């Protein structure tokens, strides 16, 4: 698809945008106390950890070499106390930081979700659901990780290095200079590694999702694969994918394996410099304990450096995430209430399309100069080939899209001057592929009117013809739909969405009939449900079944974004135009399907008799 490129994920930013960073930070602003809390605790932790080395130095110099037993015990008691304090602080920062992380994710998810509810159809038409899902799930957690654990690690690292430096300075400034010279090299190398490792990981993750896709396809299509004997070729192609994944995963693994030793090696150089220089100095300036402490500081410094490098790499990723999240949040809702919008109180009355024009891309008009007047209570059937504008007309009617040109008037008032809620809350809609939410059947019907009583729900289900099949289910109205519950047929789902629409008691009814065939009984029920709801209501039906079409007050044949034929069933048949062809074809197909089925089940004679009776009564 042409707009695919737009959704190719860019996982790293090469330059770090300050605006984005500030905006990321603003996510934690309301919780600055928590941030302060964990920053302070981690700083103290870092200082205490660094102080252990000084303590060890004193233990060796004073306690052991100096032979001062009392001081030794005292020092160990201090050691123990500091450890206890450390444990408490660790508890505090894990709780604060972790909680903040959960909170930030919670907030961002909420914000994104709320914002998405305001976006219009055209946004969802061009944005894949999967893309939106990753914004809400993975990107939000990446951002929150950066502002919590990432920030924590960096704070720890900076405080750690600073205090270590200060302590080292207090022991011996010449040696400290040696260490300071090594440090930038260490950091550079660590960053070099981390970024590369992350890139390889990302590549192998991408490969992995391709592998899953290939597997999925091969399992679902296994019958074809076996029938055309394509096993070898398939394996060969699959091996390309797994081989690619092998290469990036292995590279990531050995880079990671090389990383620590490389950093260790550089610290080792620093350590031997200390031993070398310090060793010669011992009698003059440095004690044994001091050398040991120095060595310990250097060895230890590896960890903060590693942390900083890791956070740096993650930050690049998180900023890329943040840019996508902010792009989503910044997408303006293009269908919104106009100022001074006035609720007309009802949608009943005449509906008029006046020179309505619509397109997604300016050079490809979908609807051109469309004019239509619908009387109150009229049923309009829309027929015609797919992709010629039928759905666009009903979407415009519902104001899921707004006309690019012309006007739509309800009772003489331009519907753009009405609040959205005034329109949407008075519409009932049944979609071609009925969408049910996970939950019970009752909950799904109640979606039509949230404060409906159980009796009202049952009444609508009866009116829609859904009641009978519902009560045959084990748990009746409390049966779960979808995963973990019963699998409903398309026909049954349509009955439920009809019940939902009936419960809503709309003033305007919109239906997009299912194309897939449903069994005869269900079809009769659907028909009955539709009759109920269309009674006395203005209705638009994108019709596929003859019975629906025949009953409509007016039939519109839509071709190339225009009305090519319009009139009642009888009028259009007499015209012998497109509608005539469409109708006769459909008529044959429907009967054929019905009879074939009847022959299979051995009820052919009965069906024929019934059909003849129907004909006789002129229905």
């Amino acid at each position, binding site marked *: 698809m042409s707009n695919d490129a737009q959704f190719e994920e860019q996982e790293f930013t090469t330059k770090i945008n300050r605006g984005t960073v500030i905006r990321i930070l603003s996510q934690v602003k309301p919780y600055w106390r928590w941030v302060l809390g964990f920053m302070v605790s981690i700083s103290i932790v870092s200082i205490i950890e660094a102080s252990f080395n000084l303590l060890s130095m004193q233990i060796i110099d004073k306690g052991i070499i100096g032979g001062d037993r009392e001081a030794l015990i005292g020092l160990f008691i201090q050691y123990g106390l500091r450890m206890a304090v450390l444990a408490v602080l660790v508890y505090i920062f894990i709780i604060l930081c972790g909680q903040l992380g959960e909170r930030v994710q919670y907030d961002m998810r909420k914000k994104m979700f709320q914002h998405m509810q305001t976006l219009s159809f055209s946004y969802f038409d061009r944005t894949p659901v999967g893309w939106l899902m990753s914004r809400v799930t993975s990107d939000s957690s990446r951002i929150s990780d950066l502002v919590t654990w990432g920030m924590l690690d960096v704070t720890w690292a900076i405080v750690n290095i600073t205090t270590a430096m200060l302590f080292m300075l207090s022991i011996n400034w010449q040696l400290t200079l040696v260490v300071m010279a090594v440090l930038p090299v260490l950091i550079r190398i660590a960053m070099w590694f981390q970024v590369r490792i992350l890139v390889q990981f990302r590549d192998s993750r991408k490969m992995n999702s391709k592998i899953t896709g290939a597997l*999925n396809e091969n399992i679902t299509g296994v019958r074809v694969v076996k029938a055309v004997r394509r096993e070898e070729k*398939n394996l060969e192609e699959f091996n390309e994918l797994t081989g690619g994944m092998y290469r990036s995963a292995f590279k990531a693994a050995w880079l990671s394996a090389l990383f620590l030793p490389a950093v260790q090696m550089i610290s080792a150089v620093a350590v031997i410099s200390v031993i070398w220089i310090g060793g010669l100095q011992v009698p003059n300036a440095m004690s044994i304990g001091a050398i040991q402490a120095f060595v310990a500081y250097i060895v230890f410094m590896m960890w903060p450096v590693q942390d900083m490098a890791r956070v740096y790499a993650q930050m690049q990723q998180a900023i890329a995430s943040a840019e996508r999240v902010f792009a989503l949040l910044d997408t303006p809702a293009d269908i919104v209430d106009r100022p001074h919008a006035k609720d007309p109180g009802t949608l009943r009355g005449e509906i008029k399309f006046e020179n309505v024009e619509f397109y997604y891309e300016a050079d490809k008009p979908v609807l051109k100069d469309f004019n239509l007047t619908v009387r109150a209570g009229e049923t309009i059937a829309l027929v015609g080939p797919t992709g010629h504008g039928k759905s666009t007309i009903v979407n415009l009617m519902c104001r899921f899209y707004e006309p690019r040109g012309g006007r739509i008037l309800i009772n003489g008032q331009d519907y753009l001057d009405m609040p959205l809620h005034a329109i949407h809350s008075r519409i009932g809609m049944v979609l071609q592929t009925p*969408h049910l939410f996970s939950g019970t059947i009752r909950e799904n019907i109640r979606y039509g009117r949230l404060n409906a009583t159980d009796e009202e729900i049952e009444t609508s289900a009866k009116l829609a013809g859904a009641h009978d099949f519902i009560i045959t289910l084990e748990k009746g109205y409390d049966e779960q739909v979808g995963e973990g519950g019963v699998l409903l047929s398309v026909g049954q789902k349509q009955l439920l969405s009809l019940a939902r629409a009936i419960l809503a008691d709309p003033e305007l009814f919109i239906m997009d009939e299912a194309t897939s065939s449903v069994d005869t009984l269900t079809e009769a029920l659907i028909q009955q449900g539709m009759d109920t709801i269309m009674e006395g209501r203005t209705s638009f039906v994108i019709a596929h079944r003859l019975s629906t079409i025949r009953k409509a007050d007016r039939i519109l044949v839509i071709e190339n974004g225009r009305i090519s034929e319009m009139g009642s069933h009888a009028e259009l048949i007499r015209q012998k135009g497109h509608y005539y062809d469409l109708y006769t074809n459909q008529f044959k197909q429907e009967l054929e399907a019905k009879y074939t089925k009847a022959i299979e089940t051995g009820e052919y004679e009965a069906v024929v008799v019934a059909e003849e009776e129907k004909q006789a009564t002129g229905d």
Partner: protein
Amino acid sequence: MTTPTTTIPMYDFKYAVTTSKSRVVGLLKMMSGYQWFYVGAILSLVLAAMGRAGGFLLIGWFVDDLLKPLPQFADMSALGGLGAPSFTFIRPDLASLIPLVALGYLFLALTEGLFNFLRGRWAAYTAENVVWRIKNYVYDHIQRLTFSYHDRMQTGELLQRATSDVDAVRRFYSEELVELGRIAILFLVNLVAIMTLNFQLAILSIFILPLLALISIYFFRRISKKYEEFQDKEAALSTTLQENLSGVRVVKAFARQEYEENKFEKTNVARYTSGKQLLRLHAMYWPLTDIIVGAQLITGLTIAAILASDGVLTVGDYVSYAGMIGALINPMRQLGRLVVAISQGLVSYDRLSEIIREDREELGENVASPVTEIRGEVVFENMTFEYNKDEPVLHNINFTCKPGETIALLGSTGSGKTTLVTLLGRFYEYTSGRILLDGIELKQFPKSFLRKNIGVVQQEAFLFSRTIRENITLGVDRQVSDEEVIAVAKAAAIHDSIMSFPEGYKTLVGERGVTLSGGQKQRVALARILLKNPSLLILDDATSAVDTETEAHIRNALREMNDQRTTFIIAHRITTVMHADKILVLDKGRIVQVGTHEELINQPGIYQRTYEMQARIEDELEKELANV
């Protein structure tokens, strides 16, 4: 026919399959070919740990050397009288010692670094290669299992085993097992090193550790349980989100944004709460182990310090000890996480080996076929087939089909039509009686040969998410010219539709491309089989979604392409079957009527009714239109 040259690393796949039920044997066998790298990784672990402990010992030794007063100066030191530390004096040879010590330290650090790297690299090399092989194997295995296996296995289940379980096995080799080894070896090496300093000290340095191990395992059991719960909550959140996004039309049509926000809020809060609970467990675990580790550390250090100040240990010993005890204790905190991960890894291995142990379908690729080309004579003799014992799906089937004939099968759903034709490709084996192909018992033909020479167009047309051209050509393993592709597409009456897509034959099919209608899919699938030009063609309700006129066009095109071909057609429509040389009417697994169109319309039965129906439809249409 050319066999494709394969570029796949030539694995000996027999290593992947083991009849042994033992996990140890299975996991070891899976590693075959790489086991020396893994042994190398483990040896590297030991050497790295030794390098580390050696570094500590060296520093201790160096410290002692620094402190050791030369004998001749010893008295002088005593003369100092103040009990001043003895390090005021340096051995004169010390200056030459320092470079040695420095180089020694560097050497040990290099050793540790090098072997740590090798450990990581070799473990990863083993794991990634083993997993590469396993992935390919499982993929291949799945496509070589029988139809019956796929009939009873669910896609999701297979997919999960082939992906996440394989990954769990990878982690088992590359991370968990090695990490467990690292903990054990660091523990042992450092413990032994400490023992060389002082035995009692060594014992006192580890006596609290069992407690640490227990707590660690206990907590991680709880944490992993909580984590599963957390993941459920996360999944619930994703489901709510996904439903909202894909049901956006319903949400808007009922103006239910607020309701949806509340619903999402609930799952969002549930996840938040569960996340906090998980967090609390972590927040308890780490400080708790900090305290235990701290207690052990201080106990050890205090005793060591007292021993050192009493002169039992040297100062250098103490310095070495201080380094080693940390290396010994700290890794133990990972134990719980590892134990849980390893047990999960083993469960994954079990699930994986369940698939691997399934028998593959023997395709007989290297078995010579009794004939090189099929003429297309098919004879069924008293053939009976049952999926499950004593529940025959087809009873006593008898009929003969001459080369080049067209046989049509008509009957209700479940009458056994599809099963009957599926037997021809030996996707299932018949139970009794005989099927003869060109006079030779079908079982003597290798499956591979049959499937290459018999073309089946299945009821549910399955297209792969590739281009239309690739979908058409994927049944043959040779280069195909555009003319050939267009020719079969024209014969299948799909060429015009394909050309109406902006990218023609290069149009992608499926999720990321165009959605084809049922009839279009069927015709692409037909073109795919036509390209194979099979001597025996089976159309299993393959044009059900194609209109009658187009179907007639396809029928003529097929005859023009090859009138020597034997064809089996399964259909529901009279127009589809009426031109067949022989029509078999099936009911409940038996042939109830045989004959040509002319013969059958004069016999009462399913066929006659179906025929009547067509006439009736025309009749009714006429009446309907007259009514208007």
